[in-house]
């Protein structure tokens, strides 16, 4: 669970920087007090949680179906971890990546009340490399409960960064924080890359 939490925590910083600044005006638009902010933020986080739980279910059943073969079960998770971790590292340090957030499409939503929910859905299924890694992890867990726990830890880690969102406008040196967050994402990618390589090598040794 710790690695899922860390993955969420590290990718959360990059997510906050790339998506948070788009979400912030929408979450805060037209709101006057902390109560409204708390309601919007709760709706946003609750939506994310529900989407993650659904993803955990789908990922686990999907994993049961495709990892039934021994050879696939031995090598595929490791390979997927390596591939998605490489994507996450590239996302972190690659110069040509597009750090655009799918949350931009909320601009098409007119109803302000629905915006936090819509943002929650878009943010959860943004399919960034970190999410692909956690889906792989959820799919390879032994039980459905373990898959839920992995997603919950990921949700908790990434959500921490959204809590101070109401104060985002007051953050100085936003660019520096963004750079550190993106590097942290790349480090998380490296951790999962090592995990993937260990799984593959372990598979080769054990076969």
């Amino acid at each position, binding site marked *: 669970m710790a690695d899922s939490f860390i993955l969420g925590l590290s990718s959360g910083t990059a997510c906050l920087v790339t998506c948070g600044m788009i979400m912030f005006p929408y979450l805060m638009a037209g709101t006057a007090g902390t109560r409204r902010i708390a309601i919007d933020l709760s709706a946003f986080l609750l939506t994310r949680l529900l989407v993650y739980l659904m993803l955990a279910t789908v990922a686990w059943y999907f994993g049961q179906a495709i990892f039934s073969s021994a050879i696939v079960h031995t090598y595929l998770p490791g390979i997927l971890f390596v591939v998605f971790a490489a994507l996450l590292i590239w996302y972190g340090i690659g110069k040509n990546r597009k750090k655009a957030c799918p949350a931009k499409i909320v601009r098409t939503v007119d109803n302000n009340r629905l915006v936090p929910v819509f943002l929650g859905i878009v943010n959860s299924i943004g399919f960034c490399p970190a999410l692909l890694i956690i889906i792989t992890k959820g799919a390879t867990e032994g039980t459905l409960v373990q898959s839920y726990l992995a997603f919950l830890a990921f949700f908790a880690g990434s959500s921490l960064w959204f809590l101070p969102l109401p104060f985002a406008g007051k953050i100085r040196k936003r660019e520096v924080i963004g*750079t550190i*967050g993106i*590097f942290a994402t790349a480090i998380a990618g490296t951790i999962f890359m*090592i995990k993937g390589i260990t799984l593959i090598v372990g598979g080769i*040794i054990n076969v």
Partner: protein
Amino acid sequence: MYKDQTISTPGKPLGKALLYTLPMFLITFMFLTGGRPDFTDTTQTVALLTTFMGMNLLYFLMHFTGKTDRYRAVIFIIFALSLSFTLIKNMVEIRNSMSFSQADIVECKIPFCHLVIPMMIIPAAFTKSIIFPGTIIGGFADISSMVVLWLIATLVLGRGFCSWGCFYGGWDDGFSRFRKRPALRKISDSWKWMPFAVLLMVALTAALTLIPTYCDWMCPFKAVTEFEQVTNLESGVKAGVFISLFGGLVVALPVMSRKRTQCSFLCPLGAVNTVSNKVTPFTIKIDKTACNECYKCVEVCPLFALTPDDVKRGKASVFCSKCGKCVDACTKKAIHFGIKGVPAGTMKGFSRNLFLFVSFLFIAVFSSGSIMFTVRSLLNLIF
């Protein structure tokens, strides 16, 4: 690139340089002998005198020639090599190996190093326990003395600790001097924020797992000190990570770029020291009236602490470790050691003398034990 080349900083006259060296001479003698000189053991006496004379000669040369970095680097590199030698010799004598076993962890026999400090803070605050299998007080490289020494050094020197106190920094400092010109010139200076990401990750992972994750998985200096016994795939992967990071960040990249890449791009304690650089009274200042904006200081800075913007602002950034390389390189004497609150271009000599005294005294005291031990061991080996 350079607009002008003129004669660089001259030193002091012989008598004055000797006078400035005298206090260091007396203090280091008192420290090395413990106030009670005992010259009965010939090998020990030779080791003591070699260390003592060598240190004071370097300090004298700093004053006599006016150059800082070239003499600082000598003691800094010797410190790194001798510390590794001391550690390895101790490990081999105690365990017949550089590696430690699970039993050593359980018995808290692992030597402590300052790089663990950022990982200890959160777990110590919440669990009131130290997440490192070392000795709290007493014994070889105990936790309390290392923490106190680091705390004093970082408050007084700021990131100066990274060039005047860290017993690992000498490794990549040494390798960064192998080539006369860098083969790798274009490195984005945004990488200098990487240690903060490493700090964030290791502090959080250590807090979550109650394991010093940096030491467990990332420390390149495990390759030249002590490491976990390779008994399974995981410990094998860890050993691979240590060796790769050492080979890449401590050897290959510093050789190619002439930069201290491990210190700049990985070390989490460097990030903490960068923050404490805001507290220290010492700094590097640039006299804008004397500066001809040749940017040689930017080029030679091993820690990406100077940018053209910093030169225009008239001071080094918080990443500065006060190694003195830029000061030595400045042909216009525009860049100098300074004290916060004192305008640039004023009290240059006093600021340098004060900083050199404090920082050299720290490295002399901190390194003398391992240097003396190394000299004695080498003498025993030869004779």
